[in-house]
């Protein structure tokens, strides 16, 4: 299925592992089943946690009856808000969310009480027996309605959390002869990680505690646990467990189960394991935000964009979490990689009583990209240009480098390169040159999606944009690396291994990268924003530099050369000008050990300071950017409404390839997850309750739904991180659904402005153009039957 362009990436001898595809260090253990995830861990005397939750989205809590829960055989503790030793608070940025509700519940699944018991069955049975007196309160389930003055208030201060803007030029006075308007309703997404949320809390008296957690940021967990237990940070040790998928869902959320387990562990003085059942996990953990996005964009007669107005509302759910950070990124990403002289963007974040919005691969960018690319196609049609030509006229490039915030991109700007590479891979011209099959219900289409992704953290989160590494040279020449960023399946161990091996001139197999632990590295922030390889890699390079201050003098002595002439490559320290003059690194390490020279060093990285005005949205929100272009080819069954994505051609501006398989793995995975989001994954809500909280009815792609994937990797000597690498984790997903949407629109010849494009959505959009539209009339005439007609 996958066509590789391998030839140009084969490693040249002596060049090191960079850009190659040696075996991932975690692959064998994972594939053979020997990796131990949280649910596999057990300790003597360990208890199991469960949580009693609210079944309704908005209510006053007038009483909690714990007697029957406490009576369940095997139950050791049932706790409420009053039993929390520290602060009853979770949440990364704002203090709006209690660990356990006291007076009010604001979402389905809000925690009311915690249980610890000797078996998971007893714990959950007891949790179900916690009886809460809940007096229903009005609720709001639409983010746009939530912002109306008379809407029920989720929190006392009102439902508007924040407004972000970009205002550049005067859109009202822009001269555009072609103007299009649209309102897009873009649905959320469930992360569908293989491993549900879980952690193990191990107390040592009431002095300190160790948490082993499936998570993307052990430091967030550390802060959350310290706060609920009232402990100093140093008394909370968080070790990242092997993590079976995150996709953003384990950025901030793991703090919540960890805080629960910690409180129970302190109360019982026993280890407590807490693994969320899938259904509850899907209901309560964070989700990609649903957004409502309004556009008014204009172009002149020659097909050049003149202005763009975007008004977005994010559904944050009942607590802020990191929704404002998502909105901050969505806000400045609203226009995509296009040159637009006048821009007005507003992005509002609204409380509702719906699912908890949070981080998800792309972090707000996929939604606004979906809308932007839909509008680009609309405008192209309105200008009587094809979507490819219209994009060619408007893309940022080395001459027109200013993005909507006014930031001037650093050269080279590779948007055009990505577009043309994807166009070539997809066979765009051939596809559009030949006549399309029109008999029968199957319709073919091809669509483009382009994305501009700001690498690493936004200006607003710059205080977190630092990271720590420790490199330890062992006496046998092997190397231990510890970093503060996590492996969650994406390949960060392989990336760090490659970077360290490249810098130290050793075989990748001689480098062991270990999962982070808050007692071994400094706070490195979260593994998000496609920053894993970047942030950990930069810190590793810094640590290697410092290590060489101790290593090079010894090497110089053995090689009888100057310290400056020492070079590390191919497993040797050698003389730069005379590479045959060399000593094995293993010998060098042995020598250092016998001389008792410290073979350990730390490394640190922090991003450069940038200027950005949060009021106008002008300035440099990100340090550098990656461009991606996906072209999707679809076949749509125009009668059943089923979309089949047959092929995606993906061109990515990656700076530099660190590990080829990891890179391609990210691109393939992003495309599959993006396809699912765009076509079949739908969070169906009934008054804030998720109606499809399982994989029976939350429809992710199967292997049979995976398109054939073609990849073009665009490398450059431009700005970037370690060896010039940019992030790939998120750019790999962002444009897919947009490309699919545009392909479906081309196939059917009608606009569809709702995501996902499920069969019912498409059939509804077809309206009277569907040959059997008339049968739905029968339904209206006959009314609804009472009985459940479809079940398992």
């Amino acid at each position, binding site marked *: 299925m996958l066509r590789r362009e391998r030839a140009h990436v084969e490693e040249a001898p002596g060049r090191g592992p960079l850009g190659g595809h040696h075996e991932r260090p975690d692959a064998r253990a994972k594939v053979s089943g020997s990796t131990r995830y949280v649910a596999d861990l057990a300790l003597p005397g360990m208890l199991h946690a469960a949580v009693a939750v609210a079944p309704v989205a908005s209510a006053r809590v007038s009483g909690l009856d714990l007697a029957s829960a406490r009576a369940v055989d095997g139950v050791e503790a049932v706790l409420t808000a009053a039993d929390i030793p520290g602060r009853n608070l979770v949440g990364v940025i704002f203090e709006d969310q209690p660990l356990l509700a006291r007076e009010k519940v604001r979402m389905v699944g809000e925690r009311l009480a915690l249980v610890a018991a000797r078996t*998971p*069955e007893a714990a*959950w049975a007891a949790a179900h027996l916690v009886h809460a007196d809940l007096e229903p309160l009005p609720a709001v389930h639409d983010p746009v309605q939530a912002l109306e003055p008379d809407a029920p208030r989720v929190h006392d201060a009102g439902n508007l959390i924040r407004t972000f803007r970009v205002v550049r030029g005067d859109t009202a006075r822009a001269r555009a002869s072609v103007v299009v308007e649209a309102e897009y309703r873009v649905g959320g997404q469930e992360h569908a990680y293989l491993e549900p949320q879980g952690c193990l809390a191990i107390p040592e008296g009431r002095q300190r505690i160790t948490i082993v957690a499936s998570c993307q940021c052990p430091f967030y967990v550390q802060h959350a646990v310290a706060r609920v237990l009232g402990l100093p940070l140093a008394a909370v040790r968080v070790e990242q467990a092997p993590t079976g998928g995150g996709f953003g869902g384990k950025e901030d959320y793991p703090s919540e189960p960890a805080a629960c387990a910690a409180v129970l562990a302190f109360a019982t003085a026993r280890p407590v394991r807490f693994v969320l*059942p899938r259904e509850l996990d899907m209901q309560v953990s964070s989700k990609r935000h649903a957004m409502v996005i309004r556009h008014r964009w204009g172009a002149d007669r020659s097909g050049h964009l003149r202005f763009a107005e975007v008004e977005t509302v994010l559904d944050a759910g009942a607590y802020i979490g990191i929704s404002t950070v998502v909105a901050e990124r969505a806000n400045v990403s609203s226009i995509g990689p296009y040159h637009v002289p006048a821009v007005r963007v507003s992005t509002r974040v609204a409380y509702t009583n719906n699912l908890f919005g949070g981080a998800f691969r792309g972090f707000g960018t996929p939604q606004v990209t979906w809308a932007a690319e839909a509008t680009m196609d609309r405008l192209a049609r309105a200008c009587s240009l094809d979507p490819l030509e219209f994009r060619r006229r408007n893309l940022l490039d080395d001459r027109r480098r200013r993005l909507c915030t006014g930031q001037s991109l650093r050269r080279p700007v590779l948007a055009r390169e990505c577009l043309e590479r994807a166009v070539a891979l997809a066979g765009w011209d051939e596809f559009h040159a030949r006549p399309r099959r029109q008999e029968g*219900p199957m319709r073919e289409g091809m669509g483009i999606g382009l994305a501009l992704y700001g690498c690493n953290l936004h200006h607003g989160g710059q205080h977190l944009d630092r990271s720590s590494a420790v490199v330890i040279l062992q006496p046998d020449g092997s190397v231990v690396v510890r970093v503060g960023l996590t492996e969650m399946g994406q390949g960060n161990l392989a990336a760090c291994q490659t970077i360290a091996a490249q810098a130290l001139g050793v075989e990748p197999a001689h480098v062991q990268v270990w999962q982070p632990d808050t007692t071994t590295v400094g706070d490195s922030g979260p593994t998000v924003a496609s920053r894993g390889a970047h942030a950990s890699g930069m810190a590793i390079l810094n640590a290697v530099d410092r290590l060489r201050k101790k290593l090079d003098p010894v090497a110089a002595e053995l090689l009888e050369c100057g310290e400056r002439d020492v070079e590390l490559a191919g497993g040797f320290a050698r003389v730069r000008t005379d590479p045959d003059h060399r000593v094995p690194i293993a010998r060098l390490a042995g020598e250092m050990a016998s001389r008792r020279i410290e073979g350990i060093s730390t490394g640190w990285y922090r991003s450069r300071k940038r200027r950005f005005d949060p009021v106008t949205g002008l300035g440099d929100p990100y340090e550098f950017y990656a461009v991606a272009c996906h072209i999707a080819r679809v076949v749509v069954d125009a*009668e*059943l*409404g*089923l979309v*089949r994505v047959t092929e995606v051609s993906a061109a990515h501006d990656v700076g530099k390839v660190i590990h080829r398989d990891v890179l391609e793995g990210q691109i393939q995975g992003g495309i599959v997850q993006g396809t699912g989001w765009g*076509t*079949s994954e739908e969070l*169906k809500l009934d008054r804030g309750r998720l*109606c*499809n909280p399982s994989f*029976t*009815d939350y*429809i992710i*792609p*199967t*292997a*049979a*739904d995976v398109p054939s994937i073609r990849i073009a990797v665009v490398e450059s000597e431009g700005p970037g991180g370690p060896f010039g690498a940019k992030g790939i984790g998120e750019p790999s997903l962002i444009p897919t659904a947009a490309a699919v949407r545009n392909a479906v629109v081309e196939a059917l010849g009608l606009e569809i402005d709702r995501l996902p494009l*499920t*069969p*019912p959505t498409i*059939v*509804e959009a077809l309206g009277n153009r*569907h*040959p*059997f*539209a008339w*049968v*739905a009339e*029968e*339904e209206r005439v*006959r009314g*609804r*039957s009472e*009985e*459940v*007609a*479809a*079940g*398992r």
Partner: protein
Amino acid sequence: MDVPIQQVIRPATIAEATALLATRPDARPIAGGTDLMVQLRDGRKHISCLVDLDGLGMAEIRRVDEGVEIGASTRMHSIAAASEIRSNFPALAAAAGTIGAWPIQCRATLGGNLVNASPAADTAPALLIAGAVLTAVSTAGTRPLPVAGFFVGPGRTVLMPGELLVSVFLPLAQVPPGCRLVERFVKAGPRREQVIAVVSLAGRAVVRADGTFEEVRLALGSVAPTPVRARRAEAALMGRRPNQETRRGAVQALQHDIAPIDDVRAPASYRRIAAAVLLDRFLLEAARV
């Protein structure tokens, strides 16, 4: 989480199994467990004792006079692969081959699919058009149950407590000389594989040499509280040629055979339209083959 099962009993004979079921009201048969285990875990069923049907020798596909008999414990993958089924009952073979994916097909049984009585049970429409007759056994004796009256509602059948389904008999289709037989099973859902039917349709058409229908049988899943025969649509097709007018008439009649609802998988209006599409496609194919 585990399931609240206290005991699993493995009887060696059908008589032993029915005796157990007659005396233990807390016991339930388990075949492949692909429905039951899920329901136990979800807390939708409360049973403490399982009677495992695996040792009862009910997993055979046999050619008998005038038909084929399938043991209730026959796995879907055996049904999908059996030449006896593929050549005589292609809709059933196709249906069995679309249940879940390969690992599920290696566990899921025909009996379990029927007794679970989901409106979406994929083998049900195929058995309805075949006019299958089920055999139930209990300590009270053996009784034949035509599949047409077997399903009562979602999750409910005419089977009585303590009664075991042992086999399914499918009579061979009667095809008069000069006629040809077209039989299909199709389902519509939200992705390509691993689909629980949003609508399924099994169709059998006996087409005369002149292209008119000698007989048409249609049955659908997920469009009513039980899998249903579409008798009105069948009547609208009898003796006719599947031209556009006939097809439209059949689609119209079909709307009175079905009573779909809105649920988490699809709105009723979509189910009506998709049922129409599946019927229309079947008829077009019957005309072509």
